[in-house]
């Protein structure tokens, strides 16, 4: 099946971002993974306090929904298969995932929580993380070029598992299984409703919608930051920028009218937190081969490398959070909250935010024409 056009996907994501916030809360990805890692460390005796239930904690539910929806979508589209990477890729997954978790903790979230939803939430930290992500992606790409020169045979490749085996041909029923999975998700919503957790059930559905859209369009933020340096192409960054513009307008309305709390998703990370955290995350995601949301939907379609990334991403995020929270000095270094409307008022904030995003849009278009920022191999 053909991939969904990336610009349309971007617009759908922007719309879903508003829907999700209106329903309950902004979307994020690493938060849920961190809860799962918290449970692992609690089980191992490292943490004394049990985290909230993975089926009730909203961070966990939205990420579960994302993976689940992407899984169903991948089955329907014939994209699901276990893909086993060579050893070098596994090492990159471990290092990349660890850096992503560390960076996301400092930045107050991953490419979604710390960047996408942060800008949407009118927090200046979102732009700071964007600057960091650009720098990190640039360095990450330079590293990949270097690796290709010095370890060319290391990325040899190994065959995917699943297809072509003798016996039952799973490919014939994968699309049907996919539809059953998606219907199962709706059934899960009914269960949540029945148990008195309608809002959380709705968050799960929102997560599923994100997962379906991202997977079907192969929508990846790592690409958005990498492509201008790698190929000069602007299609993916344009889609991300348009997506955020839509989300910003929705969030501004929700906050300005008082329907949603002004402080929502405004984290005390404007400072080294967002900038350096973004840089480290950006570098890590190039090694990992996926951003936070990209990791989630790629896991759902059977990519084993990203499963390794998820484990290290979640674990390092959990441990870093505990470390930073244990020290007031570290929290000060991380930064402070900058809610733009507090300084500029809502009207100027929206104009300035859209303006900055437009500037970025024009810059990537200019780069597409001139290859000015393309890094040669």
């Amino acid at each position: 099946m053909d991939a969904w056009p990336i610009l349309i996907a971007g617009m759908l994501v922007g719309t879903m971002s508003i829907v999700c916030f209106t329903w309950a809360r902004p979307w994020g990805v690493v938060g849920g993974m961190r809860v799962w890692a918290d449970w692992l460390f609690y089980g191992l005796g490292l943490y004394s306090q049990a985290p909230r239930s993975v089926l009730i904690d909203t961070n966990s539910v939205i990420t579960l929904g994302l993976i689940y929806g992407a899984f169903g979508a991948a089955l329907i589209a014939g994209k699901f298969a276990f893909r086993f990477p060579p050893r070098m890729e596994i090492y990159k997954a471990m290092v990349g995932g660890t850096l992503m978790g560390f960076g996301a903790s400092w930045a107050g979230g991953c490419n979604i929580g710390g960047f996408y939803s942060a800008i949407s939430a009118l927090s200046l930290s979102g732009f700071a993380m964007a600057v960091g992500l650009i720098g990190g992606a640039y360095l990450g790409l330079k590293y990949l070029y270097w690796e290709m020169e010095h370890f060319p045979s290391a990325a040899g490749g190994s065959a995917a598992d699943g297809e072509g085996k003798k016996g039952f041909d799973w490919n014939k029923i994968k699309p049907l299984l996919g539809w059953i999975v998606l219907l199962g998700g709706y059934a899960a919503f009914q269960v949540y409703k029945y148990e008195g957790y309608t809002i959380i059930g709705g968050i799960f559905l929102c997560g599923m919608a994100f997962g379906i859209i991202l997977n079907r369009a192969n929508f990846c933020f790592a690409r958005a930051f990498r492509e201008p340096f790698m190929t000069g192409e602007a299609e993916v960054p344009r889609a991300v920028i348009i997506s955020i513009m839509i989300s910003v307008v929705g969030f501004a309305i929700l906050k300005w009218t008082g329907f949603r709390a002004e402080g929502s998703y405004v984290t005390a990370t404007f400072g080294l937190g967002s900038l350096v955290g973004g840089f480290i995350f950006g570098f890590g995601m190039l090694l990992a081969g996926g951003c936070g949301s990209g990791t989630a939907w790629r896991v759902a379609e059977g990519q084993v490398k990203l499963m390794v990334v998820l484990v290290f991403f979640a674990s390092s995020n959990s441990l870093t959070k505990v470390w930073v929270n244990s020290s007031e000095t570290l929290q000060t270094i991380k930064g402070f909250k900058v809610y733009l409307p507090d300084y500029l008022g809502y009207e100027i904030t929206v104009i300035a935010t859209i303006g900055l995003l437009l500037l970025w849009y024009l810059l990537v278009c200019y780069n597409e024409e001139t290859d000015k920022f393309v890094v040669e191999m």
Partner: protein
Amino acid sequence: MVDVTADETLDCRGLSCPMPVLKTKKALAALGSGKVLEIMATDPGTGNDMPKTAKKNSGEYLGNKEGDGYTSYYIKKN
């Protein structure tokens, strides 16, 4: 679906984004004019990337062919 004989083969099976594109870019740079490169890949996104990668690197995308658990993409160097 195409039926083409490749002059050179690049095995990107098991590799995920962006490695197949990067390795193709490098292989195309070294490829002689008129020669055909076959890229074996398992990453689902590769199908969308190959036509653009070909164009950007002085190549013509000829099409793809399903293999046993992977897809082969064919690019002819201009």
